[in-house]
């Protein structure tokens, strides 16, 4: 059980924080270089370059919600403070990623479909995911005592997990204006080599940044709670 102590995990993460930031800087320089020099798409022109922010942000918002939901389940079942802190650290970053997906997606939609927004299954389910993230963040700050807010927000995160397969498979289950999967699909990716490489480097760049943010928030919350507990003990 000692491994689940937030302080031990916080100390463990602290060592890798700087490495993550260094990796983010390296990947961002490489990916920006590749994005600038890569050839435009024959049909979409320059607008397809939005993909290198939109797609990694979409993957990350789904992945982060999956981790947040799992951490919430573990927290609710085992009453583990570490899991609740992980969920709390991920919530604002997931919200940020889903807002990025919606903003970049609607601009891309305007350039390719001629409309900023359509009530398409993929777009609507992504909007619902953003609202769940928003609700989770609001719940985390709604109660005076953090244990109550952790409990309420975790229940929302567990319910919100139902939306994840809906977002992922909406393009297969319904006829949508949004294109289908082009990387994670049966038969392999349909993107050509250089585009796929640029996309993966952009993804790792944003992933490193998100992990850096989540770890920093995790350390901050752990220290704050340790201090509050010590203060309570002193009183």
């Amino acid at each position, binding site marked *: 059980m000692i491994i689940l102590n937030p302080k031990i995990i916080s100390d463990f993460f602290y060592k890798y924080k700087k490495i993550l930031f260094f990796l983010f800087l390296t990947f961002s320089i490489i990916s920006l270089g590749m994005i600038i020099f890569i050839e435009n798409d024959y049909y979409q*022109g*320059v*607008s397809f*370059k*939005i993909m290198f*922010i*939109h797609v990694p*942000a979409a993957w990350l918002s789904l992945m982060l919600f999956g981790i947040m939901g799992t951490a919430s389940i573990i927290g609710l079942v085992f009453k583990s403070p570490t899991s609740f802190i992980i969920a709390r650290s991920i919530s604002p*970053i997931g919200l*940020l990623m889903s*807002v*990025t997906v919606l*903003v*970049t997606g609607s*601009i*891309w939609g*305007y*350039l390719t479909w001629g409309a900023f927004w359509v009530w398409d299954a993929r777009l609507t389910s992504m909007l619902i995911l953003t609202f769940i993230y928003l609700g989770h963040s609001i719940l985390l700050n709604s109660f005076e005592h953090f244990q109550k807010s952790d409990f309420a927000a975790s229940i929302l995160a567990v319910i919100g997990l139902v939306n994840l397969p809906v977002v992922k498979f909406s393009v297969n289950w319904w006829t949508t204006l949004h294109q289908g999967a082009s990387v994670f699909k049966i038969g392999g990716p349909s993107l050509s080599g250089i585009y796929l490489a640029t996309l993966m480097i952009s993804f790792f760049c944003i992933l490193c*940044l998100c992990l850096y*943010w989540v770890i*920093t*928030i995790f*350390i*901050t919350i752990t*220290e*704050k709670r340790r*201090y509050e507990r010590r*203060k309570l003990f*002193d009183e």
Partner: protein
Amino acid sequence: MREENYSMNSLILVLFCYVFFIVLAAVTTIIILNNKKSVLNKISEISKNQQTIKK
């Protein structure tokens, strides 16, 4: 002429997407680091005060 305008418009919107993300990332990093700094400062300040009281 119409096509030229469209590509110019596209380029501006693509650049807007990248600027939006870079600004968002920078602001988030500053807020997170500031928050961490203020929490750690508060803790060290109170620890120092407690040590002085004990002495």
